[in-house]
Structures are given as C-alpha cells and as structure tokens.
C-alpha cells in the first residue's frame, strides 16, 4: 500500500502544481520551488517526486501540445487531483489544529488580534 501522508517536499510540490496551473511541468516546478523557498533542487529530484505523487493518486499528468521553443518536443503537465486536494486540506487542518494547541504561540496570537 502506498503511503498517503505527505512529506514536506511533497506538500510544497503539490501546492506549486496548484499555483502554476497550465505551466506545471518538471522544469518550471523546480525553478518555482527555488524561487519561492530559496533552496535549489534538481529537475530529476522534482520529477521523481512528481512521479511518486502521481503513483499515489495526488497528481495526474498529460502531454502538452508540441511547442516551437522545445524543438517540437512535448512537456508533461501535472494537475492536482481531488485526492491531492484532500491530502493538502488534511495536512493543513492537522497543522492548524496543532498550532492552536501550541500554548506559547496561540497566546501571542490572541494578543495580536
């Protein structure tokens, strides 16, 4: 059985796929990851994780129309599935719940509000 929980890297990638929409292919996702987090990651590592997420059913993919830029070669565009969205929501809910139970932090938030 495949692991259904999300790792940190997986979670970020899922979010990035959602953000990038039509442009969510491996190279672009890797570059966006670097831009957003300041950490570099290879295309291979990104691709490998995307493939894993696809195997888990959180992503699906299709080949785009060939473009001139890539010498007629197509790219694989990833889109998030309903299962993927649910996994993200579960993960966020868990975190929020944890944040709220964290006394030091929730106190502070009360003061701020």
């Amino acid at each position, binding site marked *: 059985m495949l692991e259904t929980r999300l790792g940190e890297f997986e979670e970020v990638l899922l979010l990035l796929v959602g953000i990038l929409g039509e442009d969510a292919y491996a190279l672009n996702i890797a570059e966006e990851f670097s831009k957003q987090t300041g950490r570099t990651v290879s295309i*291979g590592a990104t691709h490998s994780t995307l*493939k894993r997420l696809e195997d888990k059913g959180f992503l699906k993919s299709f080949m785009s129309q060939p473009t001139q830029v890539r010498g007629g*070669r197509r*790219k694989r565009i990833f889109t998030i599935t309903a299962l993927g969205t649910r996994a993200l929501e579960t993960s966020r809910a868990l975190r929020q719940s944890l944040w709220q139970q964290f006394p030091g932090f929730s106190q502070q938030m009360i003061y701020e509000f």
Partner: protein
Amino acid sequence: MSSDQHPPSRAQKFLRFFLKPELWEEVSGDLDEQFYTSIRKGSSRKAYWIYWLQVLHYLRPFAVRKLINTPSNLSIMYQHNLLIGWRTIRKNKLFSIINIGGLALGMAVTILITLWIKEEISYDRFHKNYSNIYQVIANRDFNGNIFTDRNMVFPLARFIDEEIPQVDHAVWMTHGQTVQFTDGITITQQRGHQVGGPFFDLLNWTFIHGNASTALNDPTNIVLTRSMADIYFKGKNPVGKTIRILQGDDLTVAAVVEDPPANSSISFDFIRPFDIGDPGIKKLENHWNNYSWNILISTEDHTNMKSIDAAITDIMERHTENSNSTYFTHPLKDWHLRAEFNAGINSGGLIQYLQLFGLVAAIILIIACINFMNLSTARSSNRATEIAVRKTLGSNRSQLIQQFFFETIILTLFAFVLAIISVYLVLPYFNLIAESNLTLDLFDPSWWLVGLVIILLVGMIAGSYPALYLSGFKPVSILKGAKPMEKQHLPRGILVVFQFVASIALISGTLIVFEQINHVKSRDVGYDPDNLIMIPGRGDILQEYEVIKNELLASGRVQSVTRTRSPITQIWWRSPAPNWPGRPPETDILFSGMTTGFDFVKTMGISMQQGRDFTGTPGDTASVLLNEAAVKAMQLEDPIGKQIEYGDPFTIIGIMENAIMESPYEQVSPLMVFYAPDDAGYIHVRLADNVGPVDALAAMETIFTEVNPDLPFEYEFVDEEFGKKFAHEERISKIIGAFAAIAIFICCLGLLGMATFTVQKRTREIAVRKVLGASVSQVLILISRDFIKLVLIALIIAGPVTYLIAKNWLENYEYRIALNPLLFLLVGAFVVIISLSIVCVNALQKARANPVLSLHDE
C-alpha cells in the same frame, strides 16, 4: 537563441543510454529548455555544468531503464542456490566460521608452501643449457669410508675438454674468494671467482656492456656485476676503465653483467681469468696433487653421462697413482635441490624438505577439508527435510549435487580471500624464518590460475562427501519423520581419526626435531667457543704477527693469542692417514689436518687428555698433537712419545679431547695438528675473563689498524660461527612447529564443531537422563566417550608411523637422540586433554542446565 550553442552531446548520449525511453521526450525537453535559458542569462560554461548535473540527477530508480535482460531459468536457479547458500552460512554462524576459518588456514599454508617450492625449484633454470650442464665431482674411498669431494686438480678440465668429444665446454674455477678493490678512494670487499675456460659460454649471464666472447681474453681483464660497477663507475660505461686490487694488480674492466639472480646457485660480484703468465699458475698446469678447484662442463644433448664419468676417471688414473677415487658428474638441476651425498650416493638435500613441507601442507589442507565434510554431513539431518521437499518438488539428484557443490564453492571462495589476506600478513615473518624472499604477486595471471584450481579442487574435495551423501536421501522416509543418518558414524569416525593421526604426528615430529637440536647443542664442544675471536690474516697481519701478539697481550685485555692455518670452526685439510709402526695393512683412515703456532691448546681452551701443547722450542716442528678420535682410529695404546710418519717422522707429544670443528651432528674425525707457525691464515684471540668484548674489540682494532691502515678490521666471534651450524635445523624446526600448531588448531576447530553439534542433537537425551538421575559427570563421560575413543585410535596409529619417519630422519645424523616412546604417550595425553576439554566445555553447559527447559521445548 544562439544557434551555435548546443547542450553537451556526451551528456545527452549518456542520458539516452540510461533513461527510460518513454521519459526521453519530456526530460530532454526540460533539460534543453533550461540549458538555453541559462545560456541567455550568463556563461555557457555554467550552462554546460548545470546540464551535466541535471543529467546525473536523473540517475534515480524511477527514471533508469532496466539495463540487464530478464534472467533465464538457469540463472534463476543459480541465484536461488546462492541465496540458499548464503542463508545456510548465516543461519549457522559458528559452523560457518569454523568451516571457513579452517579452510582459510589450510589454504594459506598451502599457498605459502607453494610459493616457497616454486621459488626453490626455479633455481638455475635461466641457463640456456640447463639440462646439459654438470659439475665434475668425485667419490674418494678411504677404507670404505666414502667421502664426496667437489675439489678437483687444476689441469683436469683442460684434459676433459681435449679428450672427451661429447663435452662442449669445460671450465675450472676457484671457490668464492673475497677480494678488496679500490679506485684510489673507495675500498670495498667483493666476492668472486677466478675462472679458466669459456665460463660465459657455459653459463648464461646477461651482459650490459661488453660481450661474452672477449670478456676473459686477457689475464688482466675483469668482469663486474652491475652492483659492483655501480659502486665504482656510477652512471658511466666502465668498459676499458681500470680498477685495482688492494695492494695488488690493476685490472681492466672488460664487461659488465647483471647481478646473478636470487635463484642462482652460483653467485659472484666479479669474474676474472686465471693469470696464465703467473709462474705459480704455470706450475699448477702440470700439478695433479693439488685438489682445490671446481670444474663445470657442458655436453651435447642426450649424452650418456656414464661414459663421460668413466672417461674422467680414466684421465685421473693415468695421471695419478691414487686409485681410490671415482669421478662422476652432478647435473645443474640437482645443484640446489640434491646437493648432499652420503657414502658416495646422492642423499637429496633441500628436496627432502620441499617434499616434507609439501606433504605437511597437503595434510593440513586435507584436515581442513575433512572438517568441512564432517560438519556438513553432521548437519545433514537438519537439512534432510529441505532435501526431501526439493526432491518431492522435482529436483533430481544431479541438481542437488550441483547445489551442494555450489554452496561449498561459495564457502571456499570466502576462505580463499581470507587465506590471501593472511598470506599477505604472514609473508614477511615467513621470509624471516625461512630466510627466503618470497612475494605474492597478485597481478601474475599464472597465479590466478593456481588460485582457481585451488578453489575448485578444495571445493570439489570438501564438497564431494556431503554432496553425494546428502543428495541420496529418500524423501518419503524423511518426510515421514525417519532420521536419515543414525548408522552413518563410521566414515565420519575415520575422518576424525585421520585428522588426529596427522596432528599427533606433526606435534611429535616437532618435538623430536627440537629435542635433537637441543641434544646436539648441549654436546661437549671440546673447546671453549665463548670469548674467542678469530681474525683472517689479511694485509700485513701475518708478517707482523709477533708485534701484534705482543701488543695484544700487553693491552691486558687478551689472555692468549695463536695463529692457525684455518679457522677453528672449519676443516680445510683432509688427507689419508699417516703411517705408524704397527699399522695394519690396508688401513685407510681419512684424517683432518691443521697447522698452528704456539699456544694453540691454551687459546682454544681444549683440554688435554695426555701430554702437552707445543712449547715454542725447535723440537716442536718434529712433533704432532692428535685428538682422541685419531688415537682410537689408529688403535694406539700409550701413544705419547710414539712416532708417526707423514712425509717426515713426527713424535706424538699430546692427545687432545675431541673438539667439534665441523658439523656438530657428526662424529669428530681424527685430527692431527702440526707446528708450522709460518703456514698461518688466521689469528685466534682468547679474551681475558674480566674484559667486556666491546672494550676488547676497540683495543684490538687500534692495534690491527696500525698494521693495516687501509683495511677494515675484520673479526668473527667463534661462538657465533659455531651457532650458525644449527641455523638450518633450527629453521626447519620453527617452520614445522608453526605447521603443527596450525594443524592441531584446525583439528580442534573441527572437534569443537562436532562436539557442539553432538551436544545439540542429544539435548533431550541428556535431559531425560538427568531426570532419571544421572549426574553431571556421568553425562560428560557419556558425551566425551565417543570422541576419546577416536583420539585413542588415532594415537595408536600415529605413534608407530611417526616413530618410523623420525627414525629415518635421525639416521641423517651420526650424533643423535634415542627415540623415547614416552614422547608419544605425552603427546597423546596432551591431545586427549585438549579434546576432552573442548568436548566437556561444550557438554557441561547442557549437562548442568535444568532438564525441564530442554524437555519443555516439545
């Protein structure tokens, strides 16, 4: 986008090679896109780098295609065998360690011995004429006492060359001589030969400068080895240059040859021709009484050597009156390996030790293999079910045999790697003990062939019994629950007995060798070798003897000084017996001779049995000292004052106790000592009792260098020289001792494995017996009885066998120990105790355990 910039094609090719084809389009698209983007942004070099990096980052399981084709059925089977083999090894760690460790030890010993034997039999093979070269030697018969002599007369070689057509070349040469050379600055001492005849045509040496045909043309020529040439003419071509013998002639370097290899019987630093102009040499040309030279000959192929031997004997008989010598030829291939003669018959030599050690190595390897067989068959019942299931599922017997061989060969492979590692570690120590220079060259392909053969051979031998035996099980009866091997103890018993026979034999053999050496060492030497120093009479030492003697004595560090013809640790002069009144006819006794000066007996510390030493009076020149052996051989009664005739008449003035001058393993030969102070070659110095040798040597060096300012002060301690006579036997005993230890260790490993196994198998039996009231000791006796029975049988076999072998070996020595049967009993007791303790330690645990625990299991 610039058109001349492309992604690195090598990286692309590589990517294409390993990437799954279905990923190619998207991945290469991504990588190219990134490449062109970074080119537009900055340096192209960086883009290349990034591209490569990205390609390498695609080396991930998800992206790499299957590079190996789907395995066939056969390789699945081998994979399976490998897996099962590996599991069996891991499941029984103790057994595996014993098996692999024992085999590894056995193989390490075999590899070592093989290396050594290989080195020894490679001796002299580099000579082109290897099989046609001989040394001329003679058996000299002294009244039935035959003594084999390598010393020949000077003219013989020339006559052999002229008169015997089958002989291609004949060469005569001196024994190795030590000569001091100088170029005006550096003085060195070098060893070499003077030769006559075509030395460089007979034997092959590699010429660096000059050539074989002209090297010995001129009597003032000299041929140097590379290392000697490097001392005096570093980096230059020395041919035509001059080198001087210290206080002697100038010689012209005619050629330079490579140093004789380590595996050459003949070694030298230089070779020079006899000086034919020298009147002394001229005289020798017709001198048929002086036996001092070695003669080498080479013959045509397929020569009948018997006829050559007869022809040589014939030449000698025509020129001399003595007819007690038979001449014959000793082939080059035997020089190193079979150099010893006993009563005129070749009695072997090194070859015996090669054979002995070869045998020992084989025995040790066999012991290790036996361990393996024993443990595997013993464990067979644990695997019986596995075999039955395999058979039921359709394995035929040959497949099972294959499987077991496969497992054995895996184990053997492990053991082999271990063995190589240990040989590497042990080799330096082995070289030290065996005084050899062996190396393990792993890059030598022939070596790998040997390794492969060893692995397969050992694998086959060690695996044969379990493979054939285990594969023969009847599946039905085993699956019904029958035990497969209840009445199969006999062959295993035989194997264990064999192991112990070998170990007992090796241990007792070692002890016997040790005992013999100690016996000879504690023998009365007949003189006092401690605090005695001998100094070769080089340079002006002998001319200035009186001065030196007085100064030495005046220094207060020296008790007494004498000069002799030869060192006290050697005999240089052998001769037929003198005549004496009442000598029985046809008595021919081989005598040793020595000439000395004043104070001989006192300096050597020889005790006189009767009579007195030389006194330095004129009457001494007509006097002689004999040793006890001489008196006994001549059957003289009341010898003092009797006359002997040896050229001139001599009066016997003293009888010395027998001093061991030659081999301590032989009887002391009859010795006569004449007074001839000017005929000296050595000075012997007895140090004063209360003086330390360092102090004394320093004082002596000053005195000697005053006389010989150019020469280094050379000296030898007599006790050290005497000790060297034991070196050979001591070496052998050390090696055999090490092997005996290894053998008994491997045996014990095997015993340990067997004992552990037996105890495991009988756990429940032990528990039941305990419940029924057996005591711990009764259980121990029960378990050890079987093993001790085997060890005792081994003892009964090993005793007589070793006795016979040892007796045979001891017959090489005239002075030897009597074999004591008690020795075998002691060794036997030792082995019994060791095996008992191994078995008992194992059994004790089970015997002490609460029986409920083991019975509870079921």
